[in-house]
């Protein structure tokens, strides 16, 4: 807790805060980072292999192979989520499985599975993008901001 906020706490609350701090389980940050790095890296390596596959067997270039690769990765993660495998990977890897594009597929399907009992229209249909919606919204917004920065930098910044 920030020091500013702590000053506003009553003595009892401060005492409780210290009591809690001493006893709470420490997060294994280094281990979590290592797991995320390894699993995230493995997912990226699989993505690279799929990209090479599309380039080798089809007429995709390095530039155009990205689209089918992303589609395949999302599709695979959706299948794995449906089979309950991706959840186990996510428990172990944390951000390593959520940050790559496969995390998007997982977010869509896990929400769909969760709300299946509420019906297809009001359950699956309206809740499917509950988690992934923010990814789409902020992804689009971030792309817009970056495009704006690039336009300004190239048009007037002389880059």
């Amino acid at each position, binding site marked *: 807790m920030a020091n500013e906020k702590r000053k506003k706490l009553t003595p009892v609350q401060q005492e409780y805060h210290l009591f809690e701090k001493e006893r709470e389980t420490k997060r294994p940050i280094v281990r979590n980072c290592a797991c995320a790095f390894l699993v995230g890296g493995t997912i990226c390596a699989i993505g690279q292999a799929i990209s*090479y596959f599309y380039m080798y067997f089809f007429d995709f270039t390095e530039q155009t192979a990205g689209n089918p690769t992303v589609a395949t990765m999302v599709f695979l993660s959706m299948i794995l989520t449906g089979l309950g495998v991706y959840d186990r990977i996510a428990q172990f890897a944390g951000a390593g499985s959520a940050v790559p594009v496969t995390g998007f597929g997982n977010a869509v399907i896990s929400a769909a599975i969760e709300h299946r009992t509420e019906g297809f229209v009001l359950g699956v249909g309206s809740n499917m993008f509950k988690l992934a919606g923010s990814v789409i919204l902020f992804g689009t917004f971030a792309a817009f901001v970056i495009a704006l920065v690039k336009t300004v930098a190239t048009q007037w910044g002389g880059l």
Partner: protein
Amino acid sequence: MKRWWLAAVAVWLAASGCAKEETEQKQSLQGADWMRAQTFGTAKGAVLDQGPAERAVASLRQRDDVREVVAVNSGERLLVAYQIPHLKRWKRKKIEKEIAERLRAMFPGYDVVSSSDLKIFWKTKDLKTKMEKKRWDERDLQREIGRIEKLSKEQT
């Protein structure tokens, strides 16, 4: 048990990450093993004059930001494909621009197509190998170069 597994994966990833680029390339390709085959540059065995292509290859090979080059020419068309070393890919756009300008200056009367795309490199290398194996007439070669050029310009 879990720790052992984690340690084994970490060691394997670290070892494979430290591998030399050439070894990685050998592993990344199937069957034909494109990258393993040395790039001699141009189709010397071909009957068609490959002088401009040879000059382009010789010129680009002097650059340290170009790893492998392969070139083919036919009529007024010159197709040059090259590979940029992995860590120099940060400046890929700049290198591509410099090379395109240099080649255009070297071959003013030619329609020069240059690309650092791996697929274009494979296709050009494949074309060069085919040219060494059998006789090609100018029209077939033009058509094949046209196909690769079209592929290199594809955006989606």
